[in-house]
């Protein structure tokens, strides 16, 4: 079995195993799940470490023709855009399994669904075929629904489960229509992203079609990522979901839409992207500012982190809307960082809920005294959430802000406001109310994470956040070449726009020009574009030979 298939199928095979084992062997289920996600994690780590840097070539490629007449292939592969996401997904899945020890009843179903979700989302990230890409993502829909209903919490979990399911299906279907339209418009008769990209390079999609398909994908994927104003499902759903589901969903599955935008919408529809990113940038403010403000008003910790998770998505959108290499790279970093962070916060929220029976912040206080480990990790997570250096969110957000500034200066200013201040306000308020202050009498016997095993998931996620935060080149060196390729088609037409924006910002006065002239090839002098283009072509030729080997 090839390595990517191995990563995807470990959880799926685990699920089949669990389905076949009788209910009475309850001990086995958790073990199998840990083993399956652990193996996936190991595989993802291996791929991540063996990943060849500095190239946009697709690595670990696997290609099996699947449906001939439609041009659907089982096509897996990683490049910079998804290698980190894959690792993050596997890590979160493993951590989610670890924290699921709180599940006591109907373990068989629970772990089965958990593995299904995991396999699905890893498959979605590894797929290079539109069909499988979509297909794998949708595997998570039903498990989410059942998990919220059966193991969820709160009185309104019925409403939450239905809302999240309907909303996500709506988004997924809109995206599906966009994908199918894209397939039809390219005329390449293939769902294979690689082949499609190659085809589009020679025969671009007509501009009018791009202008229709891009917003379809933007809204469809946007709904999946809780783009404002289609975000209300997220707080509701995550507030009611069991811990592991919320971790996987908010952490990993939600990134699918962003990944789709980067992998498909932007490279294949450059003109559509040019035209619509302005709107995307404005909407992302809805996430950053508006949802941040909403998070400030929440009295329930679960809702607070859910809203904050929605708010953070704004950075990823902004990075994509920048259509610049720096911004897009930043967006990918944000995706990974937020995945880890969201999983961590939801994991901690789950711990608190399990121990306290509530997440109403008014009923907590001074918990840090009783929970030095969990509380400490929670403080770090909240600080990471407000963009503190040392955690992976910081490099991502910084790159996004820098990358998007020239195209959207005002929006970046407001985004920085949201990230630095609004984010800090609600994060610190939560810490203040829950962990600081006096410990209520009835909370005196709240136990901390007792042993290393209990601490492991939180420690793992936090460690990943810190490692990527301190050494962001682990991510960016892998991402850059692929991000460059993703926006290569946009850049051609983008140079003039950037120049225009630059002129608008700094005026046309001569001294500025002179100073700007010193920035090397900042303005994409002809050499710059030519270099980019030749790089792209060489990338293509490498891939071509790669495919030939498969065929």
């Amino acid at each position, binding site marked *: 079995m090839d390595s990517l298939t191995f990563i995807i199928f470990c959880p799926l095979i685990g699920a089949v195993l669990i389905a076949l084992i009788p209910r009475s062997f309850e001990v086995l289920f958790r073990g199998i799940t840990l083993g399956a996600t652990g193996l996936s994690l190991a595989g993802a780590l291996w791929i991540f470490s063996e990943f060849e840097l500095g190239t946009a070539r697709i690595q670990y490629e696997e290609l099996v023709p699947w449906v001939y007449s439609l041009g659907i292939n089982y096509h897996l592969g990683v490049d910079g855009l998804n290698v980190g996401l894959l690792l993050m997904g596997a890590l979160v899945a493993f951590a989610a399994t670890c924290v699921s020890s709180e599940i006591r009843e109907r373990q068989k179903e629970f772990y089965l669904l958990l593995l299904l979700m995991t396999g699905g989302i890893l498959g979605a990230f590894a797929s290079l075929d539109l069909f499988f890409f979509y297909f794998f993502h949708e595997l998570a829909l039903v498990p989410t629904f059942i998990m919220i209903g059966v193991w969820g919490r709160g009185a309104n979990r019925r409403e939450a489960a239905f809302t999240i399911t309907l909303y996500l299906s709506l988004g997924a279907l809109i995206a599906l229509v966009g994908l199918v339209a894209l397939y039809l418009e390219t005329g390449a008769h293939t769902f294979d992203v690689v082949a499609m990209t190659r085809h589009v390079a020679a025969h671009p999609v007509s501009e009018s079609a791009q202008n229709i398909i891009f917003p379809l994908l933007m809204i469809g994927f946007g709904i999946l990522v809780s783009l404002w104003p289609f975000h*209300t499902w997220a707080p509701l759903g995550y507030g009611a979901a069991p811990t592991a589901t919320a971790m996987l969903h908010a952490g990993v599955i939600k990134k699918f839409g962003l990944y789709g935008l980067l992998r498909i919408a932007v490279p294949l529809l450059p003109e559509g992207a040019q035209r619509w990113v302005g709107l995307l940038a404005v909407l992302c403010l809805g996430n950053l500012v508006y949802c941040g403000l909403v998070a400030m008003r929440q009295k329930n910790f679960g809702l607070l982190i859910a809203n904050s998770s929605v708010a953070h998505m704004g950075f990823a959108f902004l990075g994509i809307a920048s259509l*610049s290499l720096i911004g897009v790279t930043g967006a990918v970093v944000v995706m990974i960082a937020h995945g880890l962070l969201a999983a961590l916060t939801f994991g901690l929220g789950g711990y608190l809920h399990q121990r306290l029976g509530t997440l109403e912040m008014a009923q907590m206080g001074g918990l840090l005294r009783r929970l030095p480990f969990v509380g400490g990790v929670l403080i770090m997570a909240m600080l990471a959430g407000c963009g503190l250096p040392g955690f992976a969110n910081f490099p991502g957000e910084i790159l996004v802000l*820098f990358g998007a*500034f020239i195209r959207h200066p005002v929006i970046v200013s407001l985004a920085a*406001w949201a990230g630095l201040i609004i984010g800090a*306000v609600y994060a610190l308020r939560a810490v203040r109310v829950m962990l600081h202050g006096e410990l209520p009498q009835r909370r005196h016997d709240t136990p901390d994470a007792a042993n290393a095993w209990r601490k492991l998931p939180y420690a793992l996620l936090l460690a990943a956040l810190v490692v990527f935060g301190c050494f962001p080149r682990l991510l960016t060196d892998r991402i850059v070449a692929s991000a460059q390729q993703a926006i290569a088609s946009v850049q051609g037409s983008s140079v003039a726009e950037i120049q225009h924006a630059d002129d608008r910002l700094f005026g046309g006065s001569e001294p500025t020009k002179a*100073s700007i002239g010193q920035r090397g090839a900042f303005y994409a002098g002809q050499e710059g574009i030519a*270099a980019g283009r030749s790089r792209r072509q060489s990338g293509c030729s490498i891939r071509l030979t790669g495919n030939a080997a498969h065929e």
Partner: protein
Amino acid sequence: MHAASTHLAWLVLLPPLGAAAGITLLALNRPAVSARLSIGAILAAFGVSLVLFTQGVEGRTAWTWLSIDDGRGTFVAELGLRLDHLSCLMLLVVTGVGSVIHIYSLGYMRGDRSVGRYFAGLSLFSFSMLGIVLADNFLMLFICWELVGVSSYLLIGFWFERPAAADASKKAFLTNRLGDFGFLLGIILLWAAFGTLDFAELEQRIGAGTTPWLPSLVGLLIFCGAVGKSAQFPLHVWLPDAMEGPTPVSALIHAATMVAAGVYMLCRVFFVFAAPGSAAPDVIAWVGGGTALLAALIAVQQNDIKRILAYSTLSQLGYMVLAVGLAGMAAGAHPVPAMYHLTTHACFKALLFLGAGSVICALRHEQDIWRMGGLARRMPITFWTFLAATLALCGIPPFSGFFSKDAILALAWERQPVLLGLAVAVAFLTSFYMFRLVWVAFLGPAKSQAPDHARESPAVMTLPLLVLTVPSVVAGFWGIDSYLIEHFRPGEGLSAPGWLGQLTAPFHHAPVAAFSGLIAALLGIVFAWRLYSHRVQDPLPGLLDAAARPLRDKFYFDEFYGRLIAWTQDTLARGADAVDRWVIGGALVKGASGSIELCGRLLRLVQTGSLQTYAFLFVLGAVVAIVLMLGW
């Protein structure tokens, strides 16, 4: 030798980080180990700094943290360390004062159950602060800037179970963030305009000329960072509250180093403000002067020993910022006075805080000066060192504060006489409130039972006091200013006179400034003596009547901000929440699903179950189909 030794800078930076990480991971519950780790790390950093300083090492060393080349320009974020006169001196201050305070903490924090956490925070702070000092580009500066903010947050909130401490830590962090917002925007703008964040390159490119409004805007935005960190008006409100942290923390962070980081940063990137045509220096000077006066006025009516010191810190920071602004007003100037004052202030203010800590410890955490008195006899070492620091602060020659403050007054005399007047007034107020403190707490009669049991603190606390007294007294003769001038104007600083020349230099250079400052200070002492030498109650409210109230209540800034936030941010948040709940979540989402369901409920009323109805609808449907397809 030199090329190799720039790498030594890493040895300054990394031990505290290692200590912080080590304590967090391994020794959180082992007080002795954590203390040793932390103190060892800061001492090591101090040792290396000393080597760097004495060897006069200059140059830079870097590690690429992030680098993205997009074919148009490169976004490089390096963790670059820059060694020059400015950073070497500052390293010495930070590690020197830091070492002393670390050791002092050993005594002060004895018996607390979270010593490990305390030292971890302290080490993290040292690392971040050293990072700011060494940074050679804006991004690294910003990173460490943020880390300083967070370590301050962790340390202020060290006793998190006290609501006041928890609130204060939150307030400090958020207020800092407000400044950082502007700071970050400034950095982004700089990068967008000049394509680099490296100080040296930026200095060149800005020097080459820009659009006229750009330096002003960037300068003001960058200054926002300093306003937050150095607690300048209007973001000064967090510093007094930060006194809720342990006293050594107040000494290290909120007196000597962190708050000075803003001023250090202004000096470090002085080229931004020095750009011709920039309006920023005027604003900076006025903000600094205003803060100095405001804080001094408030300090006059404070009764908490640490708060008095905190407002005094604010006031002195105002001086420094004022100095930077004054320096930037004219072409070709340099902000040496600000750095000079920063250095001396670090020593004597740390000493003051440690002295206050010693008193607080002895009185079992009593901080109200009106419940002290007569401590001079019971705690002689504390008293004499405290007095020395006070004299330095008031600018009485030959204590170090006189020289550095005089440099600022001289600069003001050169540039802006109105600001000189303001500065002199502040000098008067400074000596007034400081001697008020000395008289009430140390010299006057005991005002409560508390001082009766007071005893001199143990050696581990008094020794640091003594150590710090040395630079507080004699730093004025060391020629710190010429060392610094050498940084800004290579070659000019070498012609320093001997120490005796140093002593009399102020009176030669700008006699008006020197004498006015000195007279104001002496007047302040006299006033304080007259008013407070034998009082058990503050007579000032009686004398000033209604005017004393706003002073005591800090000019109502906290109340005003509370209202402001409630009016703006909370209203916005409430509005957003309501929109989310009622408009988006309610009207749109629930409305859509509800109306669809309603359609369904209405539509299925057609399914009456009656055969005749069905037959009728069948035929009706057929009629409609025929009409639609074939017409009438």
